[in-house]
């Protein structure tokens, strides 16, 4: 039984670039698939093929039980698309934008108007409803764009980098909306460069690079591939590295990695927080002064590096924040980055 979104062997080339190089996807009804990859990996191309905007060179795709290539009009009735850019008319008001989209979904004028009011309320845009969207903030525009994709409450949604360019607060709000949607039974395919986002929202993750799916599984399964959790310690003085190494070797399930210039030691462990407490007591007993200690789970960025040999963010050390608190990347908010995929 194929899922709400199902694709086999999608290939799309632009000149010499193979933007999609044999992509298979399957998203069971009511779940979220995160398509994770760096700029130019082929994420946007995949979304454009699945939303009938682009014909693949070969392969087939079914969305909501409808053949994307043979029944594009029926597919369009069943999907909502929120693209990489907030695609709203900047000279129209929020209300006018939503009403127009409703009418183009073939709702009657009155129904489109009522639905616009309802969505504006839901996305906290009522106050700004009758202002041209030119005056909206980036976050408001994104919300309006998402509202436009939800006008007919489509069973299948596509979101292409929905939070790119948003500040952490707005991103958090958008995540909440997405979670509510999924709780309501919507099937969602989401592309992102934010590892944290895929981790947070997606049931399943496909890691794509150079037009291919290079790994798939749940966030936990992918992290398992890179190894389990580890303890990371930063000692106060260089001469404390050796005693600390001896302590960690006693608790660890593998080799202790040492970074001398940062005085950082890392060792794979099992046993979680309880073990961490024991490590701290033992270090303390030996008089090792520590600057920082934490239980660190492998982040998706670790997964990405181990799969592709390069960081998903290419140079931006997003995993930085992971040291010390074990919460994973991204709590500091991620910097702005290029919004254009080279594969368009």
């Amino acid at each position, binding site marked *: 039984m194929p899922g709400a979104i199902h694709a086999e062997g999608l290939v799309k080339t632009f000149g010499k670039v193979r933007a999609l190089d044999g992509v298979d996807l399957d998203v069971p009804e009511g779940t979220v698939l995160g398509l994770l990859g760096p700029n130019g990996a082929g994420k946007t191309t995949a979304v*454009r093929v699945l*939303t*009938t*905007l*682009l*014909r693949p060179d070969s392969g087939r795709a079914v969305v909501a039980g409808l053949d994307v290539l043979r029944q594009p*009009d029926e597919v*369009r*009735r069943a*999907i909502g*698309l929120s*693209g*990489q*850019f*907030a*695609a*709203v*008319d*900047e*000279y*129209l008001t929020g209300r*006018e934008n939503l009403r*127009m*989209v409703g*009418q*183009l*979904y*073939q*709702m*009657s004028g009155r*129904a489109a108007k*009522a*639905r616009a009011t*309802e969505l504006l309320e*839901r*996305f*906290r845009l009522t106050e700004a409803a009758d202002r*041209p969207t030119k005056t909206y903030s980036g976050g408001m525009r994104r919300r309006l764009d998402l509202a*436009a994709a*939800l006008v*007919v*409450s489509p069973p299948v949604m596509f979101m292409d980098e929905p939070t790119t360019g948003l500040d952490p607060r707005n991103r958090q*709000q958008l995540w*909440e*909306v997405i979670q*509510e949607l999924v*709780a*309501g039974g919507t099937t969602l395919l989401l592309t992102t460069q934010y590892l944290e986002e895929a981790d947070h929202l997606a049931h399943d993750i496909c890691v794509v690079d150079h037009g291919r799916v290079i790994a798939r599984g749940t966030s936990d399964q992918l992290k398992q591939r890179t190894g389990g959790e580890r303890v990371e310690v930063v000692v106060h003085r260089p001469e404390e590295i050796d005693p600390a190494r001896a302590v960690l070797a006693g608790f660890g399930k593998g080799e202790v990695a040492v970074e001398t210039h940062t005085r950082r030691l890392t060792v794979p462990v099992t046993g979680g927080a309880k073990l961490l407490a024991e490590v701290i007591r033992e270090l303390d007993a030996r008089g090792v002064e520590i600057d920082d200690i934490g239980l660190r789970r492998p982040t998706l960025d670790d997964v990405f590096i181990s799969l592709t040999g390069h960081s998903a963010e290419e140079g931006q050390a997003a995993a930085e924040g992971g040291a010390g608190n074990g919460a994973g990347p991204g709590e500091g908010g991620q910097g702005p980055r290029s919004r254009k995929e080279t594969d*368009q």
Partner: protein
Amino acid sequence: MTATAPTASAVEAPQRRGALTQSVRDSLVIARRNLIRMLRIPEMIIFGIIQPVMFVVLFSYVFGGSIAVGGSTSAEAYREFLMAGIFAQTVTFATAGAGAGIADDMHKGLIDRFRSLPMARGAVLTGRTLADLVQTALTLVVLAAVALLVGWRTHENLGKVLLGFVLLLLLGYAFSWIGALIGLSVRTPEAATSGGLIWLFPLTFISNAFVPAENMPAFLRHIAEWNPFSATVQACRELFGNFPPGYRAPDAWPMQHPVWASLIWSVLIVVVFRTLAVRKYRSAA
């Protein structure tokens, strides 16, 4: 964010319509959107009017008196001769507006949004060209008033004069389809504006619009006489009664039958460029 799951009752089931009804309705929804935009960017309309008004004034006072039409260099005769040319040139400038507007929609991701909706395929472009038609009509009204002020008069009955304006609007509508194709083919709105304008200059100057084609070298004269643009200019002069005294139309068929020639050219341009533009829209990447 306070959110409620969308209730089924709030969302009316999309209505199924016949293809033609849907096409007309979707086009009108898009036309309405473009008209709202025009009202919110009034400077676009104002500049669109100032430019031809300037042409009317400049041409009639600078060239008037120097250019012989029908064997006379009287400034009055030239002014009457000139207006059909300026009107026709003005309506063809709609090309640039349509092109820039559609390129802008592409650039901002709106075309992607429209293409992902279950709407009629040609409606985005038809809606745009219809809105441009409204703007063109508005510009023509202002321009005709200015022309009357500088001394332009018609010498035929109202029916014929109105038919002249209908032919002008049709020409403008046809050219906005050329603009639509340009807008879908270029990468930026700026490129669409210049791409929509540069070829209009040779097209409108190698014609009978500003000087009588009879004085041109033979090869230019042939181009001018078969130029679609010349046909409408000639038709308007005939319908407005603006031929200079003693004027004899050239032997070329479009100059002898300008109303038909204008009609045929405009319809042909609409059919050809609409087909090309809609095809381009459907595969727009």
